[in-house]
């Protein structure tokens, strides 16, 4: 079950063509250089863009089906979306932003305290820092109890320190919510830190092999021989991610 995606969409320079699933409680990272189509994919999951073909479903509920002509608007998908440079409503205070679509006032208070921004509840967005804004944006997305959470480069506008703190906070968050989380980032370290599964993307396609090789060459100076990078990958990151290199065997060389 969980979130099932198989979509295509023609963009000016390439075609997005991806298929993946993300189970409840799992974090899936879409990693790749900017312009790889990552944001387009989560915008299609959110219902903000229409795919050309394919299906999107969550726990059996169809959100998009090109053949059956089904396209649920974003309002009916009940998901949380944290945008790249925090889109808080400028006319509302931190509290009212989080309460915008919240289930209850208690939930708002709980989240503001959990993310340590309770003391800023009466401030407007231009009166708080980037990290605080992003925390507020995450609270806002969570306050309506979404069925899935989409994060679009949530840390890209933050300085290194704040980014590290936020990363830790998100890691804690995942223990508390058991929904699928899709995390879009261009930073492979960030992806590996948070995600259960990492999908490297280039030009709208999932290309695990290329990305890992690229990364290993950069980081470990190792060769491109398969055994080398399999070994180097586990060594470098120090944990076993069978999902990743199992798929490397299957995935064709696409670049």
């Amino acid at each position, binding site marked *: 079950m969980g979130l099932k995606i198989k979509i295509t969409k023609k963009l000016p320079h390439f075609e997005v063509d991806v298929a993946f699933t993300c189970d409840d409680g799992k974090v899936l990272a879409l990693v790749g250089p900017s312009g790889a189509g990552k944001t387009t994919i989560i915008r299609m999951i959110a219902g903000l863009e229409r795919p050309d073909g394919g299906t999107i479903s969550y726990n059996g509920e169809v959100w998009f089906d090109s053949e059956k002509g089904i396209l649920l608007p974003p309002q009916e998908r009940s*998901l949380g*979306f944290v945008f790249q440079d925090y*889109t808080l*409503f*400028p*006319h509302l205070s931190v509290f009212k932003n989080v309460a915008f679509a919240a289930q209850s006032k208690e939930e708002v208070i709980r989240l503001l305290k959990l993310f340590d921004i309770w003391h800023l509840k009466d401030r*407007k967005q*231009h009166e708080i820092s980037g990290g605080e804004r992003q925390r507020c944006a995450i609270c806002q997305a969570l306050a309506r109890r979404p069925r899935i959470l989409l994060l679009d480069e949530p840390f890209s506008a933050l300085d290194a320190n704040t980014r590290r703190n936020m990363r830790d906070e998100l890691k804690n968050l995942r223990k508390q919510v058991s929904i699928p989380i899709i995390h879009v980032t261009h930073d492979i370290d960030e992806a590996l830190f948070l995600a259960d599964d990492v999908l490297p993307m280039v030009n709208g396609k999932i290309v695990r092999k290329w990305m890992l090789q690229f990364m290993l060459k950069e980081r470990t100076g190792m060769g491109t021989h398969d055994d080398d990078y399999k070994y180097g990958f586990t060594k470098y990151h120090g944990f076993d991610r069978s999902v990743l290199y199992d798929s490397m065997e299957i995935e064709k060389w696409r670049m």
Partner: protein
Amino acid sequence: MDLMPLYLSIKLAIVSTIILIVLSAPLAYLLVYFRFRGKSFLEALLNLPMVLPPTVLGFYLLVVMGPKGALGRLWEAITASPLVFTFAGIVFASIVYSFPFAIQPMKTAFEKIDRRLLESSYVLGLSPLATFFKVIVPNALGGVAASAILVFVHTMGEFGVILMVGGSIPGETRVASIAIYEAVEALNYREAGIMCLILVPISYVFLLIINRLTRSNLYGS
């Protein structure tokens, strides 16, 4: 001195402004955020009063609103009174005449709103209508206020269209601009001068306020 024309001008300006803001906000929303066939034609039509000589616009309004015109007959069927040469008639004419002035600042203000705010609102479960009232309008208050003031000032200074549609009936359609013209015609420069002296500072102050509103963002972001 008869202050009735000034009172009528202000009353006309207030009524027209309220009606125009209510009408033009959803229309500006439609023009900025939705794509539909014939949009550019509709936009050009709404802006037409800005480039037409007031007498031409007044002439057509007189035809449509007259006892034989479609609108005039409809109005008479409902209210049992004619539309031309009445206060209701000049309100209607003012609305048509000032439409571009109501819609442009509002369009500009709506265009300035980050589209991601709307997307964020949709994702949070709000319908486009709820988003309009809870996100767009509060973030475009400067534009809405600028629209209101521009319409108000523009209506205060209206002359040609009112003369064509309303004539100069004291207490009904004889607004300040017409009274000034008539005073000059009658060589009553003193009365014309006083009324002008009242109108000029009002318009000037309102324009200053518009400048402020359109330049500053209310929320400082």
